[in-house]
């Protein structure tokens, strides 16, 4: 029941293919700080095209900061971020989505004052004209928010907000999706649904995902590659399967 992974075998095949897939997003020696606090300390990792890369680690390990630095919300003090070979370290935040990178921030980034539908429309703004049918498909995916489409987003429940932001990110049709704790506050069924959906999109559409999760077990069950952060440093990078099987490592860093 606790394993939302739809296809037990996916990880194996994906992990097997890791070595050959091209790196879509590369992070090199990234360091960033909040005042005196160094939250990222020389992080190097890469997310390959058509793969789900899970970033794991205890609370405060720097996972959120990593995603925020990649998308430019936090400016790094050193290091580089490359997207499809292009250096985007200094690119403005608002340019990222146009380059094919969608970031779903931690903590339900809905725009509370706008309606559900307007929230989605904002997500599609940069693409110019977007057909109504694309919106309808997001609503089909998350019927709960469809019922609320003309209400201001602040009336949504915690989980409904999470659905809205994920749906909004999908509407951007990104090449790579940065997800910060997407399962937060979601019912197990929805978590399973979303992870399954991600797997599907990755497998069939070549989407790439950089997934930050607190819930290491379910994250590893869907991911191809796992990266473990500790105190702002990468301590392990390996295939999800290997990480799952390595009991010492799991105990040391992932708490299960």
């Amino acid at each position: 029941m606790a394993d939302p992974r739809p296809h037990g075998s996916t990880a194996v095949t994906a992990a097997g293919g890791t070595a050959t897939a091209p790196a879509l997003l590369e992070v090199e020696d990234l360091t960033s700080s909040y005042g005196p606090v160094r939250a990222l300390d020389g992080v190097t990792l890469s997310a390959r095209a058509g793969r789900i890369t899970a970033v794991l680690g205890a609370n405060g390990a720097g996972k959120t900061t990593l995603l925020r630095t990649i998308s430019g919300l936090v400016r790094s003090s050193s290091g580089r971020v490359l997207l499809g070979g292009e250096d985007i370290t200094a690119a403005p935040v608002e340019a990222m989505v146009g380059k094919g990178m969608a970031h779903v921030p931690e903590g339900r980034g809905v725009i509370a004052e706008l309606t559900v539908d307007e929230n989605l429309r904002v997500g599609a703004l940069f693409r110019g004209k977007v057909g109504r049918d694309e919106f309808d498909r997001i609503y089909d995916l998350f019927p709960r928010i469809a019922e609320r489409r003309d209400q201001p987003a602040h009336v949504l429940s915690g989980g409904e907000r999470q659905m809205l932001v994920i749906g909004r990110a999908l509407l951007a049709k990104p090449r790579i999706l940065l997800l910060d704790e997407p399962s937060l506050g979601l019912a197990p069924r929805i978590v399973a649904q979303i992870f399954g959906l991600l797997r599907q999109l990755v497998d069939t559409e070549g989407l790439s995902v950089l997934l930050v999760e607190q819930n290491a077990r379910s994250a590893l069950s869907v991911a191809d590659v796992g990266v473990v952060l500790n105190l702002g440093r990468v301590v392990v990078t390996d295939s999800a399967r290997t990480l799952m099987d390595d009991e010492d490592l799991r105990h040391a860093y992932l708490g299960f």
Partner: protein
Amino acid sequence: MTVSDLQSSAPVAGQATEEAPTTATAAANAPSAAAAGGRTFLPRSTLLRHLLLVLVAAVAAVVLLEITDPFTNSQLATLSYYAIAAGGLTVLTGMNGQISLGHGALMAVGAYTTALFLSADEPLPLPAILLAAVVVATAVGALVGVAAARLHGPYLAGATLALAVGLPGLAIYFNEWLGGDQGLRVRAPRAPEWFEQFISTVSGNSATNTKWLAYVGAICLLITYFLLANLVRSRIGRTWRAVRDQEVAAELAGINLGAWRVLAFVVSAAAAGLAGGVLALVVRLAAPSGFTLVLSLSLLTAIVIGGLGSLLGALLGSALLVFLPPFVTDLGAGWGLDNTEAAQLAPFVYGVVLVLAMIFAPAGFVGTLRTRWLTSRAKRSAARTSRG
């Protein structure tokens, strides 16, 4: 629970932020006495500590008033009423998060009360009159507070703005009683005997009326700040800040939001009433044109520039209000501008200073200093642990 794990697993985060959040209220967030703890060189009792501070401040005030010239004395009297009102506004806006653009109107209430009581054939003693000003302003403040308790942000701003322009209008309408546009002239009571003796023993200066009023202002200021500081450092202040920071959580902790908002309004109205009383004495007039919107806005400006939420900030901000315009005017005159040009320069510079201050010191004087200090302390302690 194994917090030790947590701690050891995140030493970087452990040093994270000794500093307060750098919001405008950074200055406000000095923890209450009991919560801060651990200062050894001051008495542990809040009462003794604050009384000690008052004593030091009183001595400083006497020295200041005796070494400065009569005009500075009069400016200090002006400063005192601005600072009293700004102190009250600090409680309301800084600690409780309610913006008021209408405190000038509450000062008017205090001023008119004082003027009316002083116009009696045999006026009450001055302290009683000022107390009456406080009481009446408190009553009006309670009324406004009740109406305002449900309002937020700009709506509260708008309502209090209307208060600022509306209330003085009553003085024009009830002109028989309140003197209309011309206002009520105030015959400030003369300095008593003992005061003259006191001054001549302390400094040998002569006890002019200006000096007397400056002393009255200073005494009122000290009393007000003593009481406000007591509140700020007590549970009352903490509860206000809780209401400001997170309504729902505060409510769930058993705090009646409305009642506490009204209480904050009442306390700040009381201060405004006293300020109005002192203003009436110093200006010698209570007239609608003395309580324009500009006054209310200046008070708000003073507390933000000084450092929102800090009484010291309110005092410094008020000093800026009082001393900057004449300084600029004189500077302008020094550059050879004629009197008109110099006068026009003052508001220009004042406006520019406000803008620059907010850009370069967004937490106000006190808040910025406090943030600096905390940051450097955090750096030092970080350095220490990394060595250790």
